């Protein structure tokens, strides 16, 4: 958060640089089952963010000392590819990605019925192919769809979104310019059905009133993203009816002679 910038990102009619209103999400696209080798996968776009998630497991837990005899552990690795951002990102984990991996693992572990798979690891890989702010939320959104696609028993899906503050206004789903020059950023993941919050971070500067508004926007957006997640899974697993074909006539019973 720059915090001190005077860059004007919202016009007098409350329209943002990309034409959205303050409480509007970017266009979101979610597809389930996009990779062949992975046990489960998903592709998510939040505006210009492009994120792939793959799930392997439950499988043998490495490193072995991480095994839990009573349940599975969820090990998420969040990674940005080298050309996902303007300045080339040096490949490999950095401190930011280690932290994000940890909090996403924790959020996902809550929804997976881990006690069904003792001693195993459920490995979740999130690759950010193109970044435009809000990648941890897009990644978590994708990862929970990938877990469902892998057929892993879960309490629910986990939608996530970032709410922020730009030009002293609380806005939903920051894109890159808003994130760079914004005053606060608050990523949140919540199960809409139960109201349980599984991921929450905040940095920047928010008054209590702004926090209230941010939570309100975040809760509403999580509901919308949740519906898109469900829709992606339904599209993936709906049984296709052949179009325009009449059901076949039952073959006439063979005539028996005599």
């Amino acid at each position, binding site marked *: *958060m720059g*915090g001190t910038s005077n860059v004007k990102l919202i016009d007098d009619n409350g329209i943002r640089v990309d034409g959205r209103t303050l409480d509007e999400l970017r266009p979101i696209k979610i597809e389930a089952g996009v990779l062949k080798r992975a046990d489960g996968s998903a592709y998510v776009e939040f505006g210009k963010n492009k994120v792939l998630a793959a799930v392997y497991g439950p499988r043998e837990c490495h490193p072995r*000392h*991480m095994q*839990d005899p009573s349940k599975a552990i969820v090990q998420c690795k969040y990674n940005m590819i080298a050309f996902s951002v303007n300045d080339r990102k040096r490949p490999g984990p950095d*401190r*930011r990605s*280690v*932290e994000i*991996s*940890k*909090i996403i693992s*924790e*959020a996902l*572990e*809550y929804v997976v019925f881990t006690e069904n798979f003792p001693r195993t690891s459920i490995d979740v890989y999130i690759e950010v192919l193109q970044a435009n702010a809000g990648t941890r939320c897009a990644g978590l959104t994708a990862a929970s769809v990938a877990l469902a696609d892998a057929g892993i028993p879960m309490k629910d899906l986990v939608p996530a979104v970032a709410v922020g503050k730009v030009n002293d206004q609380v806005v939903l789903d920051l894109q890159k310019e808003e994130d760079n020059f914004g005053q606060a950023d*608050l990523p949140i993941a919540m*199960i809409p059905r*139960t*109201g*349980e*919050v*599984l*991921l*929450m*971070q*905040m*940095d*920047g*500067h*928010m*008054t*209590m009133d702004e*926090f209230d508004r941010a*939570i309100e926007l975040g*809760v509403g957006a999580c509901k919308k993203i949740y519906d898109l997640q469900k829709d992606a899974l339904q599209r993936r697993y709906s049984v296709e009816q052949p179009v325009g074909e009449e059901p076949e006539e039952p073959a006439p019973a063979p005539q028996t002679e005599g």
Partner: protein
Amino acid sequence: MAREIMSEIKRDHVHKLLAKGKRVDNRAWDEFRPISIQTGFAENAEGSARVKLGNTDVLVGVKMTVGEPFADTPDRGVLSTNAELIPLASPTFESGPPDENSIELARVCDRGIRESQMVDLEKLCIEKGKEVWIMFVDMYVLDYDGNLFDAAFLGAVSALRSTMVPAKAEGKGEDFPLPIRHMPISVTSVQIENSILVDPTLDEEKVAAARLTVTTDENGDLRAMQKGLTGALTLEQIYKIVETSQRLGNDLRKMIG
């Protein structure tokens, strides 16, 4: 870091006490353990503080050097925060490069300092685009009995407040105290079943489902937050924690003056 193990009997003990509204050490749910802060502990650091929060013991030092600014902030000093969970402090800490726990600890503390604009970084510019002051905040855990976030943050804030910029030694004029603008305080709470407990001990942390750290400034505004652990929090619980953090933040601010 190896997993913290807890015996069933101890776990039951914590739960049974909580059912009666009590904590292991008889504190109220919103009560901190005794806090002691000793600044100037490490004389070779530009600023330092040793913080004891109950049995948790953390030593924080600030070193400063002259260096180049980042290209995108040519007129501002640089803040670098690091946390070390050294094997001296707990049987579960291992030597080696920082693991995810120490990285999370360092980054949450870093955001509390950075986002509250506690230090006026513009006053740490020597020559725009060429030379600025670089602050290294190094946090060492010496004894781990829970709630490292608040102990380390209190240590970092106290150490920074006691820091003298070593301008003379670097040939940059007279030494001066680090320009401090705000006084952020972090308060960490955990959720165990339906109870919220502030400043958890290690035993309470091991039983806890979810954790939330809330950093506020002297106006009660929010500056940083971090949810941790694999449990869930309801919005009602989040509001309870945020409001408690504002209130206790003010109390702590008065206490350390």
